[in-house]
């Protein structure tokens, strides 16, 4: 896939990856062997019929290919860009055993973008209205998917979103240079065109309660409120000025457009030497955003090694090209402040990886040495946990871990009429797994309302535990 020149792109927020040209797409599609038993499909959490959609591309019927994908995946322009393909579909492609796997994600993105160049998307068939109302809380990928699938079945669906814009993490978390906002807008518009209503500024549990929604005639409720609450390490200095939690840093830029301050009212502090703690997608996004705000030096500080980094492979490559420096086996122990309470340095332990334990996992351990990085900003990106507001307001809802909802694989919670999916049930995961959960929940909500299942569910087992 083509990428913009690192030296140029690191100064602006325009998309880094340019996608495939038509010629490249044709060539890439031609590489697919059209396997009878396609491994790639088993690597995709929503089991997109990959060989089939690629066969349309081979025939240059791009819209046909897109239609095929949409049967499984509502948001192809987004998934093509942000799925960790190397561990999902492409990680299983048979060609990958010997050489390069088929670039499935890039093809997916290509057909979705192609549609945008030829005009309005073709609407799928929508059943006539069946008169049943369903409420969806949260407009992230899980919520949008449930809403779209139920709307297609004829349900009257309303999505309630706490923030002033729809999209969840896609809107406030993932930066423009990786996922342009106009693409999220396009996908949200598509969902709306199916008849779904999206009400922003509605904090469910506060602006309206769950009881009121049921009393108002909603037959079922889907909870897709995500895991957006930032975790922190609890080390000294974490509340100094110029220590950001990644969620705040990214929200200021992505949702509030702080990089355009003062044209937009929300500011963000620009720094010259930045340490980002963590090595997931959130850390990569923060590091590359800091570069784009003008930082001269950006470090990724991670306590394990390159091999264990959980972020999407392509973004690590992009970050390296743009000049982000990686400090592996480094564990922060204190953020040091100056006399005014502003960050001036980050003290870290040097780590070593131990031999694998019984479970086969290798753990980092202090080597006894330490070092100090001179920085004027620290961004903590060590993970997120469940969003508390709605959960705290529902009595009797069964939870696990740090406040995640217990649901079975079809999204049923222990309470009748209440379904859940996405990060709020699994802990921070991926866009496509949230969508997959949304798809399954839509099916079981339909079964529930149509009386095809018992009304009081058995207490489900957690879908996933960590």
């Amino acid at each position, binding site marked *: 896939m083509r990428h913009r020149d690192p030296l140029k792109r690191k100064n602006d927020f325009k998309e880094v990856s340019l996608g495939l040209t038509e010629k490249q797409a044709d060539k890439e599609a031609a590489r697919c062997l059209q396997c009878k038993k396609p491994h790639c499909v088993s690597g995709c959490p929503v089991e997109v019929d990959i060989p089939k959609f690629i066969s349309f591309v081979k025939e240059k019927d791009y819209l046909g290919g897109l239609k095929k994908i949409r049967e499984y995946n509502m948001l192809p322009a987004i998934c093509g860009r942000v799925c960790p393909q190397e561990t999902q579909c492409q990680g299983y492609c048979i060609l990958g055993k010997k050489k390069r796997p088929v670039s499935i994600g890039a093809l997916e993105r290509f057909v979705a973008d192609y549609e945008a160049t030829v005009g309005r998307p073709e609407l799928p068939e929508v059943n006539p209205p069946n008169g049943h109302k369903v409420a969806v809380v949260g407009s992230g990928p899980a919520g949008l998917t449930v809403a779209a699938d139920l709307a297609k079945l004829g349900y009257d669906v309303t999505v309630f979103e*706490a*923030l*002033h814009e729809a999209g969840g993490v896609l809107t*406030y978390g993932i930066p423009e240079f990786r996922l342009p906002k106009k693409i999220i807008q396009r996908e949200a518009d598509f969902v709306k065109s199916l008849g779904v209503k999206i009400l*922003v*500024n*509605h*904090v469910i549990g*506060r*602006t*309206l*309660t769950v009881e009121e929604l049921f009393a108002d005639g909603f037959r079922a409720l889907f909870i897709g409120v995500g895991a*957006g*609450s*930032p975790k*922190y390490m*609890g080390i000294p200095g*974490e*509340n100094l*000025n*110029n220590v950001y*939690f990644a*969620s*705040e840093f990214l*929200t*200021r830029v992505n*949702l*509030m*457009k702080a990089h355009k*301050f*003062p*044209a*937009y*009212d*929300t*500011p963000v*502090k620009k720094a010259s030497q930045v340490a980002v703690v963590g090595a997931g997608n959130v850390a990569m996004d923060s590091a590359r955003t800091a570069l784009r705000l003008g930082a001269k030096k950006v470090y990724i500080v991670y306590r394990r090694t390159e091999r264990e980094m959980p972020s999407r492979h392509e973004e690590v490559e992009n970050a390296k090209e743009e000049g982000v420096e990686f400090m592996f086996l480094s564990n922060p122990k204190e953020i040091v402040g100056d006399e*005014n*309470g502003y960050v001036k340095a980050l003290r870290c332990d040097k780590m070593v990886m131990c031999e694998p334990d019984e479970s086969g996992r290798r753990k980092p351990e202090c080597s006894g040495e330490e070092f100090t990085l001179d920085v004027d900003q620290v961004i903590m990106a060590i993970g997120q946990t469940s*969003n*508390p*507001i709605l959960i705290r307001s529902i009595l009797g809802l069964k939870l696990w871990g740090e406040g995640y909802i217990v649901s079975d694989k079809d999204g049923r919670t222990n309470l009748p009429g209440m379904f859940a999916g996405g990060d709020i049930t699994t802990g921070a995961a991926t866009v496509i797994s949230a969508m997959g959960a949304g798809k399954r929940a839509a099916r079981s909500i339909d079964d529930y309302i149509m009386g095809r299942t018992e009304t009081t569910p058995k207490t489900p087992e957690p879908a996933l535990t960590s």
Partner: protein
Amino acid sequence: MFPILNKTKIAPLVDEMTIKAPNIAAHAKAGNFVVLRIHEKGERIPLTIADTDKQAGTITLLFQKIGKTTVELGRMEPGESIRDIAGPLGHPTPITQYGHCVLVGGGIGSATLYPVLKALKDAENKTTIILGARTKELLVWEDKFGALADEMLPTTDDGSSGRKGLVTEALKEVIEKGPVDLVIAVGPIRMMKAVSDLTRPHAIKTIVSLNPVMVEGTGMCGACRVTIGGKTRFACVDGPEFDAHEVDFQELERRLSFYKNEEQQALHLFLRRRKRKVTSNT
């Protein structure tokens, strides 16, 4: 969109605004706040819900025009609308029958004590309210409070109304006079800290409402974090009210000053642009 129904100036630099927001009005409790954004390019700022009319579906906000957003809000008129308002947010003030409650308000903070006073009265508490300001005309809602509280003690720095001096002096006398079961203080950080220092030796339960910088107000960013009893807490979902004796006021003050330069820049730019607009109109 949230239509503005009414706007009045109640003190120099302080406006009262009534806004149509039926769902928020229906659910607001004493101590709750909203986060609002005036327009597409605006910042999200928190403001306490100072009063509600559930029947009419309206909320009343009081704000001090100290920066870009509050100055711009003050220039909006009935008939115009605010683009986004989310709420009610934050824990409501815990209301039970405490006995004798003393409410201490400094500046604009005073007015936001109004729903708290109302709720405490409804729960059959004896109430004293101490209102503090620099000078008489900066005292807000004096009459509204006077009508409701059992005892009302205005104080001004210059003695132009009520007793001359700081709210802490009035509070000290109240504490010496008789038993006090609860103190709630809202206002500038230094005032809240002074109140906290005063009640600590008497072991009087004291609640303060903190005002850190916020972004979304729903627990998802951590901008509003404060240190309470040595632990990090998010004011928007764990507060904004906390046990005064546990609050790290110094940290709060430092964190609040973090964007000072940007705040000044935004305000100057706004005022300059406005001026140009006005001159070109005439």
